[in-house]
């Protein structure tokens, strides 16, 4: 009897032990290294510019500030005489600090006034030390040349994350210049209107915020109220809306929501704009904005106000010659968005785009779109990695059969899969060629962009290499 009890007891104890032991073995693998690298190994400070910004990127945000020590070695220039840095260097050492909760830090190299150089001078920065938990990663050195450069290639992690938003709704549009190894992240809701600097008088609404617009058949802004429109007409995305409330998804300026601005003021109607949308809804009706745009000599005048206001504000926008568009925000006035037209090749961004069957297209908000700088003269081609063609093997000789497209959407959404979830990731069966306005041809591939391919949403990784110098 007692033996029976003890036998049963032992067995039950063993069972309970097994039951609990399986529930404790959470063998968790380590996190990958938080590696610190320069975003590219070469950078240029051209004659047109007085300063260059150099960025160090960690793989992920740091919990507390991390000090990074860099050594600088000069070639043909001297600190204080020809250039300084911000923050300032101490001898041949420069210390920068990654702030808490950030994953990158930048410093500036500033050319002293009235310094003229040959162009073959340079400074080499090397990461020599980084506080825990950051470790020194692959691209630990950058050479800054005192001239424009034509990059031989690099791997860049685009910084799409503005704050703490999820990667699929990344807050930045990132403009990329391959030949200079430069990326420029810009908050994608930081602007409302773009005024074309070319010959035509065209105005775009913000594709990257999901803005929509509708015309009101009136020319007096003060006479327009919410009663003049049906707010539901402005709803776009997730199956709703029509293409005529957004600009042409391919960036054709002959097909914008806002008609060409006429010389004759009476032909310029009022438009009502929903500033942020794309998810099948709009904000409160009273936040809609009414605008009317007129010509002003060789520029524009914009009148704008919240929809139910009787007073309106006015701003004059003159055409410039360095950028594709002059950008304007209803809150901030003139704002800087795109780099100069010859300083970027493509932009990676969330954007209003389209979906559906041919003949039945509807507007749809897309994450991770890539638009080529077609107004600036950049062209692109898609190359399928089939029949022995590979990204690694692709060289100048292979360019013979390639046709470059002039449009904006050659890359578009075609480089990645987002659903079904088990197939999400970059498409590895293709890569792209980018021919910039100077004639440089780069091959470009998307390395990762999504947990489904081992990447991070909102921080796509691209790799590119010079195929032919222009």
């Amino acid at each position, binding site marked *: *009897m007692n033996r*029976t*009890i003890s*036998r*049963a*007891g032992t*067995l*039950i104890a*063993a*069972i*309970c032990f*097994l*039951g*609990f032991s*399986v*529930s404790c073995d*959470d063998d*968790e*693998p*380590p*996190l*990958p290294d*938080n590696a610190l690298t320069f975003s590219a190994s070469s950078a240029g400070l051209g004659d047109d510019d007085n300063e260059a910004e150099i960025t160090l990127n960690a*793989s*992920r945000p740091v919990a507390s500030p991390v000090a990074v020590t860099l050594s600088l070695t000069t070639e043909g220039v001297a600190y204080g005489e020809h250039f300084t840095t911000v923050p300032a260097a101490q001898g041949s050492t420069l210390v920068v600090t990654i702030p808490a909760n950030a994953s990158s830090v930048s410093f500036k190299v500033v050319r002293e006034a009235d310094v003229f150089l040959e162009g073959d001078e340079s400074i080499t920065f090397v990461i020599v030390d980084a506080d825990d938990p950051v470790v020194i990663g692959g691209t630990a050195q950058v050479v800054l040349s005192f001239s424009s450069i034509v990059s031989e290639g690099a791997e860049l992690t685009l910084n799409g994350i503005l704050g703490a938003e*999820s*990667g*699929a*709704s990344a807050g930045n549009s990132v403009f990329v210049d391959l030949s200079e190894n430069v990326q420029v992240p810009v908050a994608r809701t930081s602007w409302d209107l773009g005024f074309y600097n070319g010959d035509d008088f065209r105005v775009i609404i913000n594709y990257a915020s999901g803005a929509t617009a509708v015309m009101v058949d009136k020319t007096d802004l003060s006479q327009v109220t919410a009663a003049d429109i049906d707010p539901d007409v402005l709803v776009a995305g*997730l199956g709703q809306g029509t293409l005529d409330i957004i600009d042409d998804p391919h960036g054709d300026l002959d097909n914008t929501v806002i008609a060409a601005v006429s010389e004759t003021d009476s032909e310029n109607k009022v438009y009502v704009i929903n500033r942020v*949308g794309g*998810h*099948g*809804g*709009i*904000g*409160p009706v009273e936040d809609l904005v009414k605008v009317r745009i007129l010509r002003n000599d060789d520029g524009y005048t914009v009148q704008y106000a919240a929809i139910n206001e009787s007073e309106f504000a006015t701003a004059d926008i003159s055409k410039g010659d360095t950028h594709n568009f002059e950008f304007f925000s209803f809150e901030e006035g003139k704002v800087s968005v795109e780099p100069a037209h010859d300083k970027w090749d493509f932009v990676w961004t*969330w954007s209003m785009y389209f979906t559906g069957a041919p003949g*039945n297209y509807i507007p749809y*908000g897309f*994450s991770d779109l890539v638009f080529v700088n077609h107004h600036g003269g950049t062209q692109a081609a898609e190359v399928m990695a089939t029949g022995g063609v590979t990204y690694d093997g692709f060289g100048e000789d292979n360019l013979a059969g390639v046709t470059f497209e002039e449009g904006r959407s050659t890359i578009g959404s075609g480089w990645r899969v987002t659903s*079904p*979830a*088990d*197939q999400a*990731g*970059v498409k*590895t069966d293709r890569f792209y060629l980018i021919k910039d306005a100077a004639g440089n041809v780069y091959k470009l*591939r*998307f*390395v*990762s962009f999504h*947990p*489904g*391919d*081992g*990447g*991070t*949403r909102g921080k796509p990784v691209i*790799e590119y290499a010079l195929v032919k110098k222009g």
Partner: protein
Amino acid sequence: MKRTLIVILLLVSFTLRAQDSLQTFALEEVVVTGQFEPQSLRQSVYQVRTINAEMIDARSATTIRDVLNTELGIHFSNDLVLGTSDISIMGMSGQNVKILLDGVPLVDRDATRESLSQIDMNMVERVEIVEGPLSVVYGSDALAGVINIITRKGGRKENTLGVRVRIQEESAGTAYKPFHGEGTHNENVAVDWQGSYWYAGGGITRNTFGGLRGHSVGRQREWLPKEQWLGNGMVGFARNRVNVWYRLNIVDESLSSPGAANANTGFATDQEYITRRFTHQFHTDWDISDRWTFNSVASFQDYSRRTMTTLFNVNSGERFLSPDPGSQDRSAFTSTTFRGTFLHRVSDNVSLQPGIDINWNEGAGDRMDKRRSIGDYAAFISAEIKPVHFLTIRPGVRMIYNTVYDAPPLIPSLNVKARLSPVLDLRAAYARGFRAPALRELYFYFFDSSHSIVGNPNLEAEYSDSFSLSLSSHTKAPDTFLETTTLGLFYNRFDNMIALGVSPDNSGINTYINVAKYKTTGATLTQSFTHNQLNASVGIAAIGVYNELSGEAPSLPELMWTPEVNTSVAYRFPKAGTKLSGYYKFTGKRSVYEYTEDDSYHLASREAFHWVDIMAQQRIARYLDLTVGVRNLLNVTRLQNTSMDTNGAHSTGGPVPMSFGRSFVVALNFQLN
């Protein structure tokens, strides 16, 4: 771990005496679900279906699905992405079905009844299914019905020790690797002991499925690999008029979802869904006097589910935890419940059952805004009145106070059973059912580029009115010939159902609202008979579910009907110690109207299918049985589906995955006493 288990298996298997596991059970089965006290199926005012241990053994079931999927009106669906399955009963999905383990509601994190696939079949004595609401006693969620899983309880004779050991191997289609890898592998050892007053038992099971690539490519698996460790232990004390027992059930489940390797980097993102479940229960049965009885069950459940995302380098074999902030997720729920009932026999003709039911649930994670809790306090009373000997009337009512939402004030029910003749019973029932808003529906919070969803703390309960009628005849001939015929009719009307809709405050945000209506109705006719060594049953059913588009398009039919037929046959050769059994179910074409983009209505159908299992049990030694069989003999895999909704992220179109295909089963069962 595996080695330890095998050592235990060997130790216990040689020390004990045999019992014949092929013995029959009594025909007058006793049921407990919803009853005042355990009583025979025939006496129950509810129409109850039971699946007993003999049927579970005969089918060599490793999941509850293996025994329920040929039942009339019961369907299972698969979510291949999450590796889970859900049940529907009489046209209603899992969130309207209450899953009980010895009367204790099992926690599920979501609308689907994942808990059903986390039950160790080796510890199950019996499964009881009651269709229609049992909301007076069991509260929320019991709209479509209740599935009560009754576990094995201790030994039968004083001072005995029993041991059961099982080793089962099953292929997945034609893919199979012994004990590990492709196929299903189930190993169990369980003991029970009965002393003079004390009794105890426990068991442990490994239940694993190796996954199957199916239509996936590379590292990915269409059917996700699963590893379950299931443990239980119990101890009880019974003396005189008191019986108390404590039981702990442990579930440790890991589902793996290997990702595709990125050719650029060599990295693949793998996910593992790790579920842990500790269910503690304490039961008290006390016969206070001839007129008073007290029953209670207190339980505490601790549930967690973790999504662990790792980055695996297929070239180097290195594995890292994914640093992506959204990729690691943990949801944790606890549930504390107490249900206590008195049974007072006022006279021979009148009994009263007053009771209280307290549920306190807490949860965090799973896209909820923060840790939230909800308390539900209910009192209920039922009466059983027998004005004349052939008539039983049972009215009942439940009153509820809930800490979060405005609970329905009164939940009534009325059941009547009349013995029309010595062989004929009529049962009629009306019941109101309800489903309380889940924590997730109250406090959901999820925003990204394509979702803007918030919970709605102002939700009300869904409710239903349920009517049923059944007529059963039982005839028993002198030579153990028993025939039962049952005709059943049901009609359920659901209102205030919670659906995802556009927020009235902001058209850009979706939220949960009480909006939808639904109906189900149907008829079943079943006949079963037992003659000498033959057991057989046949049933037909027609089940109609509401066409949700019929409201806006009156030209469309209001109900969409699906026919079903099932049959089972078992024959025993007592001298040879052999039992052969076969199970068949036909599920008819299921059609649903859908709204198409060009403003028309499209009738989409999922094709009909036939499901067949055949099994043979053979006693090969005094205490050892061998079972071999084929599940899904007709190799049903993916069902054609003509839905045109195939483009969206949550589309319902495309083939419906039913099974990975025909599988072959071999099992060895020791049963010693």
